[in-house]
């Protein structure tokens, strides 16, 4: 089941416990709270990199549309779907959680 996408005005944030590194352009993400690993493909890794707690999904889609030369509407839909997938997988901070220092 896909979660409702984070709203266009709510910048997604990576889960504060998620550890990650980029290997060969692919993000390897470790989730200590659920004891699982996730590997993102190259586009997903770029989106993950852009999730910095300040950019909205719309802002991320702007970058993706430019870098990958795809229509903005396509990029926005894909980014929204992907962010929803990250949320379902517990890779994002809960929406109502405060920022972690």
């Amino acid at each position, binding site marked *: 089941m896909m979660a409702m996408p984070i709203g266009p005005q709510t910048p997604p944030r990576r889960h504060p416990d998620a550890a990650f590194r980029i290997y060969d352009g692919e993000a390897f993400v470790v989730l200590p709270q659920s004891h699982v690993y996730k590997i993102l493909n190259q586009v997903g890794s770029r989106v993950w990199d852009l999730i910095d707690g300040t950019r909205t999904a719309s802002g991320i889609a702007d970058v993706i549309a430019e870098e990958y030369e795809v229509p903005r509407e396509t990029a926005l839909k894909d980014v929204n*779907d992907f962010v929803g997938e990250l949320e379902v997988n517990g890779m994002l901070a809960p929406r109502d959680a405060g920022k972690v220092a």
Partner: protein
Amino acid sequence: MSSEPTVPSGSTAYADMVVRTWNQALPMNALWEITYACNHKCAFCYNCPERGHRELGKDQIISGLNKLADLGCIFLVLTGGEPLTRPDFFDIAWAGKRLGFALRIYTNGYLVDEVVARKMKELMPFEVEISFHGSNPESFDKLTGVPGSFHRVLQGIKNLRNLDLKVNLKVPITKWNQWEIREIQALGASLGCHTEFDPVITPRDDGDTSPLALQADREFLDKLWSPEYADVTHEEAPMPRNDTAVEANCGTGRSTIALDPYGNIYPCVQWRRSAGNITEVEDLRSLWLHSPVLNEVRRIAVEIPKTTLKTCESGEFCSFCPGVAEVQTGDPRNIYPQIKMNAEIRKQKHQEYLAIQTKQPLS
């Protein structure tokens, strides 16, 4: 979009990434013995504190952690000695956390009271691994050399599990606990812990072979690798090595960068050929990839499956460690007795398994 972002979660993607990083010698793991101080006196411990050497201070370790993060390591193992004997342990661990490491904490559990357990929970490590030695106070305390350690460690595990932290038990099998591994496994399961057994005892890092007197005996190993203990070994029967995915014998110089309390850099925790000191290294990536010591280690590790293991009659059943071989025999390519015995028994059990399969094919 040419390729939509996705989150594959199957084990194949992970295995593929591990093989790629391994073949490129990009270490995903850093293991740091942050102290040799310990509150247990295990008769089989391999650590060798160097008299007169000063262990690194907190700031030096944190500076080193920055270099390990730049190198690309994602898992950080904090071990010892007993890492929790350092009063600044949580400062170091939090520094690692802030640098984006997934933490693994190797401890004996003796100091894990409710306060420490809560601090661990706040830290949210990927896992805590606890050395465990027996199913009862007699065998456990005999192996640690500390009366009362069984009950203290057991309580430490319970304190962590009460907070739902993942705890794995690591059990070196010795002749003092070999016949109680079933009970140890049951005890671990009752606590919600996964238990791993290691049947190979190693010499001390300085070459002292006295710990080998404690190794499990042949009669026990014969049982261990039989189907009777399949639930413990997690294999229906011993299977030969599969050296097709990676050409090296093991991950030495590839998968894990190891450091001692003085900052010396090693290709793994077992092979103590120092490639430098983290406090003196400006460019750790360059050292890791181009150090003559590490290149030599990697070269030998590639040779071993084609030489040592080919000439050994039971080589395909050897979990060979060149580090142990070097410290015990003086040459990293030499088969050493305890691994030879295990390999011979594993091969025999494999052949017995094949014979049964031939007579009674699986329906």
